[in-house]
């Protein structure tokens, strides 16, 4: 079966959007769920990486290298973000907002408002497109490889001793400190990885859409959070592995639902944001309700709960 033809016929880009936003969701998952901090810098970092990547390609840097540079810069941003909290004791939410505001300036200066891929330059997708000459299929395959690679890497890393200590510090900082973990270091490491992932997704997105404007990232973190909750609602399983899988599937389903909403004949797109908000309320509502019910059930089964436990 020719899947690319099917997607083309349906006219949806949910597979490609879903794959990229799965990486964003993974980054947000690491900060929001594992480190317990809302990282607002995502909204500026996502376009920053896309703009940097496209600008580098336009001056002649190979697509893959530009992807790598953008990701490394994202990691530097993550370090600054974490350092503001660790060394200057700024509240993590405020620190990430400071970074978000600061990044706006390089975004505007580099892009002059809007950056577009030059005519004769190749993105990472075009490089692979020469193989079978179907852009939509190429995008899906290349992005799937990136998603698979990053997810396996993250799964492996958070199973190592240092990865486990990052997860432990997010779950219970006092307990982690008591066990000899330097929680400052684990916090920095966690945010560096998280922001590196966001930057990777941003530069992939830039190369996919071939243009990026400086204020394009607005609401990125909200989409990331929506995918996390959607994944948790669909997959009841609580293990780390299942959480990761639920992010990948959640990304696809989120964009399928958005596409369906847009495609409803006679749907007035002025109502889109309200519809999205309602959609998110429903997902998060179900999530919270399920959590409450599960707690109740747990409470009946075992009266002593064990908050220090870190599930591997």
């Amino acid at each position, binding site marked *: 079966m020719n899947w690319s033809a099917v997607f083309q016929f*349906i006219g949806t880009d949910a597979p490609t959007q879903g794959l990229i936003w799965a990486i964003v969701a993974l980054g947000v998952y690491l900060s929001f769920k594992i480190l317990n901090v809302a990282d607002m810098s995502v909204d500026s970092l996502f376009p920053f990486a896309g703009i940097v990547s496209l600008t580098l390609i336009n001056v002649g840097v190979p697509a893959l290298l530009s992807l790598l540079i953008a990701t490394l810069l994202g990691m530097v941003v993550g370090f600054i973000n974490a350092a503001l909290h660790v060394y200057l004791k700024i509240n993590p939410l405020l620190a990430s907002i400071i970074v978000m505001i600061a990044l706006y300036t390089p975004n505007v200066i580099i892009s*002059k*408002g809007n950056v577009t891929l030059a005519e004769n330059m190749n993105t990472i997708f075009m490089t692979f497109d020469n193989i079978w000459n179907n852009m939509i299929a190429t995008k899906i395959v290349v992005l799937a490889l990136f998603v698979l690679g990053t997810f396996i890497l993250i799964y492996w890393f958070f199973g190592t001793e240092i990865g486990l200590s990052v997860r432990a510090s997010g779950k219970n900082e006092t307990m982690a400190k008591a066990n000899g973990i330097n929680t400052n270091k684990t916090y920095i490491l966690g945010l560096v990885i998280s922001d590196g992932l966001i930057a990777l997704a941003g530069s992939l997105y830039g190369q996919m859409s071939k243009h990026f404007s400086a204020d394009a990232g607005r609401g990125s973190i909200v989409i990331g959070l929506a995918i996390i909750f959607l994944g948790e609602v669909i997959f009841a399983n609580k293990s780390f592995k299942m959480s990761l899988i639920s992010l990948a599937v959640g990304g696809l389903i989120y964009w399928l639902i958005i596409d369906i909403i847009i495609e409803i004949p006679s749907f007035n797109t002025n109502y*889109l944001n309200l519809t999205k908000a309602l959609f998110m309320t429903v997902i998060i509502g179900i999530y919270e309700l399920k959590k409450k019910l599960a707690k109740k059930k747990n409470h009946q089964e075992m009266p002593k709960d064990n908050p220090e436990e870190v599930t591997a």
Partner: protein
Amino acid sequence: MKKTFGKLLLVAACAVPMSLVSCSEPLTQIGILQVITHNALGLDRTGFIEELKDEGYEDGKNIKIITDIPEGDTSTENSMATQLATSCDLVFGIATSSALALKTAVSDANKSIPVLYSAVTDPVSAKLIKSNTDHGNVVGTSDAGPTEKNIALFKKFTGIEKIGMIYNQAESNSQVQKEECKAACQDLGLTYVDGGITSASEIASTVAGMIGQGIKGLFIPTDNTVASAMSSLKETLIEKKIVTVCADKASTDNGGSLGYSVDYSLLGKTTGKMAAKLLKGEDISTLVCSKSDSFPLEVNEDFFTATGIALPSDIEAE
């Protein structure tokens, strides 16, 4: 796990028939993508649709028009562009980002349907087209305003030596006009004061700051962010007697003083005429990308009566 797969199947089952419904239309489909709900861009769209109607193509009769407005959200914009590109026979992007999204979506879907654009200030530097005649499957109209002509208006008032320009830094259209404004100021011997903002909430304080620097005139380019917040400046501008030249009619009416403005409705009509030609079977390479060429002078009488500034006689004559 069984339950999970059940839910997944449900989503997939909903997705396919929905999409099939909108794909099986026998009429010629025209997709319009407009980046954000906005007065000027709306005029552009209605002008386009009206002109098509005048040319004999009416929505629901012999064509079907699908309008998508992503409200400034880039990811949604790309999703909408993909849908329109795959299901339509002609697509129309209003403003730079929508036009670019459609161009990418059409080429990625391996199609060569015409992509029309409008309200793009500089289509060449945005890499939408190579030149007005070498444009591939993309054609349309630019909303570049007569910046130089507008800046020259300041010279007609006595005592204006320093002027400011307020614009959103993230809009490429405004960045283009900033350079034009700077150059015009230099030619005319005016001092330029930069007023770049990052969001609508900064407009009032930035204008106050520029007035503090002694500007006597203010230039408002075709900038979506500033246009949407123009009326909030009205009182300050009258109180401080700042002559404000605007490049679009709505801004002039909402608190500006005067200006040669871009007629977005006319721009939409010109683009609509191009679309009608393409629907009649004309080859896209014979069309030439155009700029708006008539810029009517708009004057906000209220400003001049409120401030007591006299309207120069040659402007009054126009």
